[in-house]
């Protein structure tokens, strides 16, 4: 397994966010973490990224323990629910950020950097908007900037936190299709969090249902109820 999470525990005071979580994701897979709000899915994502420390348990990537790596060395692309774009930087500089902060030895020169950022902006269909500031973009465009920024560091794992949560219905649908397509081209191992059943089912190779810090078995009452009877059509993961 490319990403494997073992016996993960995390609580905030008396709230338990992760209760002995186990999770495996294969290389190149696009997996949805589905669950009601407050079920611990965002916390799981933040622990994998290193933004949150687990109380117990381990996160491994291709056999390497991620827990001992500082956030900046994990090579994880993360798209925040509200994008967390750098508002004082242009779209181009947002995407270029990950390249500019590299140590001198691995930093591409200015021409190479421009080429790569332009390529990424083309890929997310924002080729002509590089000079804009994030505030001047629509929600869907911001979302794509956030994605391009995360892709710029050539991440080995892509984590998306409610990627379409802040968008209206039509934009959501378009972006879903587009993201699916992008994943087919790039094949980056991707884990995304959502509370929207349709979104999870349409977009992901595999849907994992989370409830109260635990993964629900695919045939559990909760998973069935939560998926509204659609669960039987797709392969549901039940990693115990």
């Amino acid at each position, binding site marked *: 397994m490319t990403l494997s999470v073992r016996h993960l525990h995390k609580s905030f005071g008396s709230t338990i966010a992760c209760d002995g979580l186990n999770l495996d994701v294969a290389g190149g897979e696009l997996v949805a973490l589905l669950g009601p709000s407050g079920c611990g899915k965002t916390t799981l994502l933040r622990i994998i990224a290193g933004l949150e420390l687990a109380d117990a348990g381990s996160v491994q990537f291709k056999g390497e323990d991620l827990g001992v790596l500082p956030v*900046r060395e994990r090579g994880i692309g993360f798209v925040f629910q509200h994008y967390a774009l750098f508002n*004082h930087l242009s779209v181009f500089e947002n995407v270029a*950020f990950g390249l500019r902060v590299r140590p001198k030895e691995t930093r591409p020169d200015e021409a190479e950097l421009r080429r790569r950022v332009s390529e990424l902006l083309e890929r997310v269909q924002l080729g002509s908007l590089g000079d804009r500031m994030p505030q001047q973009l629509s929600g869907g465009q911001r979302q794509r900037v956030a994605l391009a920024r995360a892709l710029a560091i050539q991440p080995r794992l892509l984590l998306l936190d409610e990627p379409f949560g802040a968008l209206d219905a039509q934009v959501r649908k378009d972006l879903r299709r587009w993201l699916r397509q992008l994943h087919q081209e790039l094949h980056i191992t991707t884990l995304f969090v959502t509370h929207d059943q349709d979104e999870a089912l349409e977009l992901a190779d595999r849907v994992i249902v989370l409830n109260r810090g635990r993964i629900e078995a695919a045939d559990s009452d909760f998973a069935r109820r939560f998926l509204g009877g659609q669960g039987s059509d797709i392969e549901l993961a039940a990693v115990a």
Partner: protein
Amino acid sequence: MTIALPAVTPAKQPTSPLPRPTEDPRWLRGLLITLALAFMGLFLFVPLACVFYEALKKGWDVYFAAIVDPDAISALKLTLLAAGISLPLNLAFGLAAAWVVAKYDFRGKQILLTLIDLPFSVSPVIAGLIYVLIFGAQGWFGEWLRDHDIRVIFAVPGIVLATIFVTVPFIARELIPLMQAQGSEQEEAALLLGASGWQTFYRITLPRIRWALLYGLILSNARAMGEFGAVSVVSGHVRGQTNTLPLHIEIAYNEYQFAAAFAVATLLAALALVTLGLKVLVERQVKKTST
């Protein structure tokens, strides 16, 4: 059943005789504005104009003579020195304090916040006395300092200390609400993209708080240059050595050199006006960037 709604044309009815329901009657508005302006004029503008009038009453020669007086120059230098030392220290402390308060949860956070506010609530004279009690000849460290030939009270270090004490809260107070509102998502994003702590601070945090920081610096500077009470206690009023501008003005005034006192006062007033102008400019930027 359909009900035709009247077309709404908001904000475009200057000819309408009907005031909005929440609006005060016109006479009340007029009265309040007049009162506010009269109050400001009487208590702020008239005294300021008076300073300049008194300073120039005996002519430009007397005015310039008072300003280039060696004691006045030395007081100006000391004022600038105290401000110049306290500002960078306040900058470092304010940033650090705002950072820990806004980004972390820890025991004693409330105590830290209260401590930051302490100089606002304590009388400056008491602030000065605290330093006399600690560093004065009869104070805690008095003997040790005397043995090592270090002078704090009635010398420049005491003045700098007192100035720092009264100006400490400004920058932290300005930054804390802003940084709390901004959260740390952008910093997290920067870390995930491979930025080091320093790169994150320099490239992300600092640009986002720069105007608020500058605003805090300006307020802090204004207070540093104008401080009287705390500095007065620790200064000892040694002419040409431990007098700051406000102290110099007081001494001149007490010695009936009114023109000289007011002339030097115009220097302080001018510094204050420049600061005020800067403040207005920066406030505009803060508003622009915070939206």
